[in-house]
């Protein structure tokens, strides 16, 4: 069936322009940060380590941000992703230790499914018990971390326990692009396309814009919510495997605090916290910006103690700017509608 063609009015064109401008703005900010850091220290971009870290460091967060964006677009939030990532990373290590010689592909599949199941628990509780996702995933954030602590104890997975070729994945490059970045980009492109062009993708937006209307209209809200949370969990699971490959050491606290980075990335990237608007591309760019700022600050000579405060100020700044732009845009849209009529 062909998608019904809606005549593009001035209003929808402007709406699209707003979204594009948002992402363009983050891209400009990102480039400015990279430029400033490179001027201060050319190694930031032009050394082989600098180039690699620039692409590699945000890769895992990009996966989480994509999952988080999909969940937030449905007017929910998934705070458990940090704990899901930690559990998945430890599972990855255990699989390699307990099942010597297990193929890497099997590990990827098992852990992604495992992450998806943890996400399914979140989704089921949200969709069937009708409890706000903020509360549910706050609960599973602690519960999953608790299971992790119980399971891991004071033990940890060391780099020497993991196969060399798996660790090589964490830093390896194909044509100067790190493998982790390629994986993250592939996920991003697929998610971006699905969210923009498919019926399923658009329904996420519809549910987030007005859950009650979506229900009345006959959208399968429960099924879409489950899908969103399973996706977020599975992406956190994939993030866990990549975390293990990159960092090599996994303790019971792996990935703690990442949920806030993921939500922060989505918000900075222009995904409205009340759902219904924003893109996974924006969220991914937000994640890259967040971590690149983090890495640029020490190079710009800002002392360690101040770095977190600066990041916080930047997040608030981004949101305030966003709000101002949104209000101005709304006024313009209203004017445009009056002009048309």
């Amino acid at each position: 069936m062909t998608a019904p063609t809606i005549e593009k009015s001035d209003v929808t064109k402007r709406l699209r322009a707003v979204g594009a401008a948002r992402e363009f703005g983050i891209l400009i900010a990102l480039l400015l940060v990279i430029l400033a850091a490179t001027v201060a220290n050319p190694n930031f971009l032009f050394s082989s380590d600098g180039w690699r870290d620039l692409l590699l460091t945000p890769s895992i967060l990009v996966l989480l941000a994509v999952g988080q964006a999909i969940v937030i677009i449905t007017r929910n939030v998934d705070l458990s992703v940090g704990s899901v990532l930690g559990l998945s990373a430890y599972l990855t290590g255990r699989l390699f230790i307990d099942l010597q010689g297990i193929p890497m592909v099997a590990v990827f599949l098992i852990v992604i499914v495992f992450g998806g199941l943890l996400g399914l628990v979140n989704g089921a509780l949200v969709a069937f018990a009708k409890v706000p996702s903020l509360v549910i995933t706050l609960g599973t954030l602690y519960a999953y971390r608790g299971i992790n602590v119980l399971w891991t104890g004071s033990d940890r997975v060391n780099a020497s326990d993991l196969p060399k070729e798996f660790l090589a994945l964490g830093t390896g490059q194909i044509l100067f692009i790190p493998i982790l970045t390629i994986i993250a980009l592939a996920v991003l492109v697929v998610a971006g396309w699905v969210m923009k062009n498919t019926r399923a993708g658009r329904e996420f937006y519809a549910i987030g814009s007005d859950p009650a209307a979506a229900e009345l209209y006959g959208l399968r809200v429960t099924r879409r919510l489950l899908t969103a949370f399973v996706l977020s969990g599975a992406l956190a699971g994939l993030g866990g495997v990549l975390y293990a490959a990159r960092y090599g050491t996994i303790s019971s606290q792996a990935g703690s605090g990442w949920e806030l980075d993921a939500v922060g990335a989505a918000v900075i990237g222009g995904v409205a916290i009340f759902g219904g608007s924003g893109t996974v591309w924006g969220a991914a760019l937000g994640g890259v910006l967040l971590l690149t700022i983090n890495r640029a600050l020490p190079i710009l000579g800002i002392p360690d103690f101040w770095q977190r405060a600066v990041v916080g100020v930047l997040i608030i700044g981004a949101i305030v700017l966003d709000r101002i732009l949104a209000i101005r845009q709304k006024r313009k849209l209203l004017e445009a509608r009056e002009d048309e009529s």
Partner: protein
Amino acid sequence: MFQKKHRAGALAALAVSVALLATGCAVDSGSGSSEGDGGGDGDLSITFVPKNLGNPYFDTSSTGAKEAIEEFGGTFAEVGPAEATPDAQVSYINTLTQQGVGAMAVSANDPEAICDALNEARDAGVKVVTFDSDTNPDCRDLFINQATAEGIAKVQVDLIADQIGGAGEIAILSASANATNQNAWIATMEEYLASDYPDITLVDTVYGDDDDQTSFDKTAALLQTHPDLKGIISPTTVGIAAAARYLSTSEYKGKVALTGLGTPNQMREYVEDGTVTSFALWNPADLGYLASYAAKALIEGDITGEEGDSFDAGKLGEFEVGADGVVLLGDPFVFDADNIGDFDF
């Protein structure tokens, strides 16, 4: 997975009970035969109570203890809880008191919680040595201290100075900004650097929060921020492993030296691939060895735990009891490519 863990737990519990039975037997026969010797040397059965069983660190200390006790013909045993919780050791200590062992060597999970149990044991004539982690001084006869703050700070500075040729920029990758131990060591390191290595400049101290990923990213930032950096000291086991992991795949591998406090299992990979030349920690085997000889000296009445007492500790030489009944093992042990294969903790 969890099923498996449970089974492992059950196995461990079984192993503990078997070990308990075994020590019971050993203690009985031990006391019987030592009566027969009639040398008045006392009962040389020494039981180790680590923080928890199945911990590679304490497995290593017990290996050292066993070696020492075999040397002087005593009986070695080990009991302990599966989880390192504050009061978990109490029941084991009480059992040992009833069995009337010669001495127990305890690594305390809590300085207060096991005090009463230990004092009951001492009233019943059992000598109590703490090692690795102390109780309050009035609950034990001796504490075997693995290293002093000065010793820990000094060995790390000496190692980095040796590796960078005594001159250049170094940085410190610490745990959290308010970690008491690390801050004390860093302060001592700064003094020692100023007095003994004027050509070495400490350019930065960053905090990895004892988190793998944070420490990893902080290492990357350090290397980029200070292009002339020659070396990094990381006085925390998490930090040094994360820094080594970053360095091992970086263009700075072999150009920027890294040392600090690490465990052999975490660092093996990086010592073998040449990222790290040497790092320090105390040797838990020596710690167990020394604790055993200290227990022997107490049982035989050679020492009472007073300051200034001295005793012989086999291959480690003579040791003297310091203030508060503390015996210092000595300088931290340096691990390098030649000896790392001998350790598993």
